[in-house]
């Protein structure tokens, strides 16, 4: 079973990729073989004064995904995702979740070596 998480503005494959990771509305977890989805709400991270990225990383780590697709990841969240063994594909804002997953499946998403956002 190979599952990936995509930051999303809503629960379905046709929602837009949320450009933020820590303060994303939620995560659509996609099984790459069956394309079955599961939605994880990220509301509890959105309201945090600080540490949203770290908490979001805990949430996706708990979902048991191998990779995360999103717009931007900050340095602490990147460190946390790396610790959890989750690969990160960035700069996918402007696509739907379905399009982002398709791009990942076709091997066109580069795995990031570092965060693409400055810390706060």
């Amino acid at each position: 079973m190979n599952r990936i998480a995509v930051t999303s503005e809503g629960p379905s494959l046709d929602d837009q990729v949320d450009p933020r990771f820590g303060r994303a509305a939620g995560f659509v977890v996609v099984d790459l073989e069956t394309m079955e989805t599961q939605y994880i709400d990220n509301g509890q991270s959105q309201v945090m004064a600080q540490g949203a990225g770290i908490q979001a990383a805990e949430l996706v780590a708990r979902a048991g995904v191998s990779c995360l697709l999103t717009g931007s990841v900050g340095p602490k969240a990147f460190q946390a995702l790396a610790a959890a063994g989750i690969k990160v594909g960035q700069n996918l804002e402007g696509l739907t979740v379905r399009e982002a997953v398709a791009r990942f499946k076709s091997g066109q998403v580069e795995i990031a070596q570092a965060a693409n956002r400055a810390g706060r």
Partner: protein
Amino acid sequence: MIVAVASGKGGTGKTTVAASLATIWDGPVLGVDLDVEEPNLHLFLHPAIAGSEIAHMTVPTVDEAKCTYCGACSELCQFKAISVFNQVILTFPEMCHSCGGCMAICPEKAISPGQRELGEISWGRAGGVGFLAGRLRIGEAMSPPLMRRVKARLEQMLAAAGGDAIIDAPPGVSCPAVNAVMDSEVILLVTEPTPFGVYDFKLAWEAFTPLGKPMGAVINRAGLGNDAIYRFCQEKGLPILAEIPYDRAIAEAYSRGRIIADLSPGLKETFVTLRDKIRDLAKPSQPRAAAHA
């Protein structure tokens, strides 16, 4: 007596007033720079620094050999300063508020106290005026922990040598500003009669009024702007303790790091009168609260 010189708006003349007040004070006095994010009182008092120390706060250090990755610390921490991911535990020392909860809750006793550097505390003398200041480490996000260390040293210095203290507070109305004024006996709010000055002055008045301390206003650059600040003070019953004129000679002296009370007999008199009015305002003296922000 501890006098806190505060303001809503930055750049209204807190340091100018604090430095002049300290210089004309009768009796032992300490000038204390609690604007640790951008300390500048030393630029006016020109103190000879006698000593300094690096201040730290406690943050968690994890002994991974003992950690079972149970996640109790991670679940407890409201600031995500410690986090467990499967078989990995991470600490983010810069997020830590030093509550000690992770160390207390860890069933394996795997977490011990480490340190995060907050900044530097220095002290010395400028002629007859004692000097104490904090300087936040570049990159440190929280100033109240360092401010608390500076205030603890202030308590020690006052206990040892007696006298009064004049605190140069940070601007604004958030935690650092409240932290700087909450242990004082009198709060001076320095403002200027401009729309920005008045707007931020109102915020400061609202923020500090619940502390229940005697407060007075100092109007700097008097003659500029309009009379809204005077009307507000009258409406709230807030005494205007001094007015400093809007004057090029004052700006020039300031830009050279001079004490403006030394500029003319009239200005000296302004600050001497201010000092006496602060003393009057402080009576009847209230017991100092032991609380810390």
